[in-house]
């Protein structure tokens, strides 16, 4: 991986600055800012046309960060837990847009859990990043649905409820791209975002993204200390945008190359256990085993591109609904005359 020099341009002549947004107002060191910078880096590397991307979010610290990247893309900082519905509507209106959404564990795991699962069930093609820190930040330190069982916080006391695993929820809802990562693992986050942008369907990346203010003590599984000490990437992941057959590495069990529908390849070089992301049952077992053993496994957990997207399920043609002309929108007078005669 070469780091682009400052001011360098990508394939469509844009600089990294063209993908940036307003200055962050999050706490210094917030995991969400690391994720935002990898979103910028991924879009720059992919040379995405800014007008093709829309940045979507709900409410919360993570959702605020939609303002901190893609300043040249339209965006909607919507309602708490309701980003999935707004994104679904935007996709149906214009399925040529590429939505990237940032959400949090409260936004997705509590108030928006139903909308999250229904969006995945519909398979709205988008990058869905959950910046998961196990705590409510903007309201100052309440437990979230992903907080560790038995965890204690300054004001909230002890959490007596088990955590919801958002990757497991995504799998059960039928999501075809389920990944977990760690804000402290910049390369993995970036490569996953690139792969997610190229995925044909909903792509969920649950990024453990520490809250430095309320939940960064070392006992928290959502802290930098814990993440750095315990993260176990199941593979070293590289996104290869233009795949050349000659690059194929044949080392069974060591490298898996998965080709996405429009050409690029995700290369996974085995690090830990041998996991086949095409196996849904294996993905569930992986999540369940890591929960039982309190392991922090990261990487691409599940990949299946076969499900149709919502636009495909609806049978929509190439032309976006938002681009229909007046003549296409309003049937002619003869059509109304025929209807009148049927009701007469």
């Amino acid at each position, binding site marked *: 991986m070469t780091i682009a020099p400052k001011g360098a341009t990508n394939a469509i002549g844009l600089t990294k600055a063209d993908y940036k947004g*307003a200055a962050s107002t999050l706490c210094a060191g917030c995991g969400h800012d690391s994720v935002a910078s990898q979103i910028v880096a991924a879009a720059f590397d992919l040379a995405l*046309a*800014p*007008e*093709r991307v*829309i*940045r979507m979010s709900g409410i919360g610290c993570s959702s605020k960060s*939609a*303002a901190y990247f*893609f*300043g*040249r*893309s*339209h*965006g*909607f*900082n*919507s*309602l708490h837990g*309701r980003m*999935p*519905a*707004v*994104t*679904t*509507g*935007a*996709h*149906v*209106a*214009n399925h*040529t*847009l590429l939505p990237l959404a940032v959400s949090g564990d409260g936004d997705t795991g509590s108030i928006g859990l*139903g*909308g999250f699962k*229904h969006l995945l069930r*519909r398979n709205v093609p988008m990058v869905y990043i959950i910046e998961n820190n196990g705590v409510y930040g903007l309201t100052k330190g309440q437990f979230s649905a992903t907080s560790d069982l038995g965890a204690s916080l300054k004001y909230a006391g002890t959490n007596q409820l088990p955590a919801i695993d958002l990757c497991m929820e995504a799998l059960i809802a039928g999501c075809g791209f389920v990944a977990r990562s760690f804000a402290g693992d910049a390369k993995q986050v970036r490569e996953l975002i690139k792969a997610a942008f190229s995925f044909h369907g909903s792509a969920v990346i649950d990024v453990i993204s520490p809250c430095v203010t309320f939940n960064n003590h070392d006992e928290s599984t959502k802290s930098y200390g814990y993440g750095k000490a315990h993260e176990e990437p199941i593979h070293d992941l590289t996104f290869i945008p233009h795949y050349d057959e000659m690059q194929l590495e044949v080392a069974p069990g060591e490298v898996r190359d998965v080709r996405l529908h429009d050409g690029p390849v995700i290369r996974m070089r085995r690090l830990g256990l041998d996991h086949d992301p095409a196996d849904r049952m294996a993905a569930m077992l992986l999540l369940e085993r890591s929960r039982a053993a309190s392991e922090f496994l990261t990487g691409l957990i599940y990949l299946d591109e076969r499900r149709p997207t*919502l636009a495909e399920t*609806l*049978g*929509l*043609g190439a*032309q*976006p*609904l*938002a*681009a*229909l002309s*007046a003549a*296409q*929108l*309003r*049937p002619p*007078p003869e*059509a*109304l005359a025929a*209807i*009148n005669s049927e*009701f*007469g």
Partner: protein
Amino acid sequence: MRPFPQAPPIVNDLAVVAATVNGSGSQTANNAIIRAIFRMGIPVNGKNLFPSNIQGEPTWFTIRVSKAGHTARPARVPILIAFNPRTAAADLAELPEGGSCLFPGDGPWRPTRDDVALYPLPVRQLAAAGNFEPRMRDYAANMVYVGALAALIGIELVELHAALAHHFKDKPRPVAQNFAVIEAAHAWFTEHQHSALSTQHYRLAPMAANQGKILIDGNTAAALGAIFGGVSLLAWYPITPATGLADALSTYLARLRTGPDGSPSYAIVQAEDEIAALGMVVGAGWAGARAMTSTSGPGISLMTEFAGLAYFAEIPSVVWDVQRVGPSTGMPTRTAQGDILSTYFLGHGDTRHVVLLPGSVAECFECGYSAFDLAERLQTPVFVLSDLDLGMNLWTSPPLTYPEQPLDRGKLLSAEELERLGRFVRFADPDGDGIGARTLPGNPHPLAATLSRGTGHNERNVYSEKPEDWKANMDRLGRKHETARRLVPQPVEELDPAAELGVIFYGSSDAAVQEARSLLRAGGLPTSALRLRALPLGEPTRAFVARHERCVVVELNQDGQMRDLLRLHCPEHATRLLSVAHSDGLPLTAEFVAEHVLLAVKQELPA
């Protein structure tokens, strides 16, 4: 049975109530009666009073024939079809003296009144004429009362046949089977109840009142209107009484918006709840498509937060509220006009929405398309308040008329226009109407992008919590509301120079109020009328109130919600605005309205 005195027949002025069991197929029978009478050129309409239930509960269908064209629920119904033994005794008790009761003579129930004409029908024997397979025989029983009623009041058999052909879309077998039962019942009734026919007061005679007219329900008219307004996304959640609107959209969009290659240029998404339904509409409106949802009161309350967001983020969206009675279960199948205040102010933090109030099925069609033009012109959610009575019942109407104006997509800036302008200020107000120009996602110009959010933005739509920025924004939204006041459909005014009393009303109450006005006029009390067609209220309404010493506001809710809005609108005349507000789940009757307008006026007069 008492002998009835000969009286001159009453022609084309009657009402029939068919009391049946829901899920028994009686809707087909009742619609056939209505359509046949409609085809005879006689003004007719029907109201279905049905339970919140799939099958087995009582339902009452009232058919009103009125040569004067009155369509309100009739206060007096002289012909009873008592086909539900569970409610028959109570139904019979309601029948006015001298009325007629048709009932299954081979059923378990026997009527016990001698001041009405009783017609027992051999239902099983007559239904056999249809040669139906056993599971369909209950449906056939309903056709027995169709045939008997046809003989009793003079519905033409040829028109009943045409009505069946319409219902069964010309499928020959069900048309023939059902018509055989109707014919058999008609023949039997004519032969065996001949003496009854000669004393029967109520008769039909063909007229020519329906030339060019159509018979349609408000939900279907609304759906068609939306289609001629270019609706491209319906996101909805099933709810009575709005489901028919979504069903009609599904039917007619498939027909009118499928491309030559077979692909739809529309989408229908059944959402997981009403929150998501409006969320999808807002997302699609933001991305530039004409999107709508249809719901009823409970859905409206769930949509509150999105309604506020769309208002403040200034996103076009259309919401149909087919109103019903109150929350939860119990009376979801009964009508009301009870969502006026909640919808007008839906949201939090100073929201006042555009609300359209269709008063007829023709206006349901008009609101169907004009709601989109207003939503995009004003960049705001537009609510259309229909109700169960308007939405689910069949009404005679002039034909639906094609929109005169082209689609109004509002102020939109293309990449070329941005290039020419050299700047983009999303919430500028260059025209003084409170409306800025918007850009759509996908616009490639580097200036086009903007991040939408509810509050906390300045004129350039950049994050700002500065008090002066928000105040300026709220002031501009105020100007936009004033623009809306002028753009929305204006009230329909009918001034009677002799009248000191004004009557103000809206929506489906039109039918009862107009008939009540004719009763009051006949009783020596002329009135002027103002039918409101939208919120916000405007100058014509203020002028009408100023012109009349007293105004009675008639509406189908308990608290007089529109009266309260009128008092806010004309505070200097607050005390002259009297209220006739009533909510019992049924549409208003003219007699009730006339009586209570008189009472309201009397109570206001000094002793």
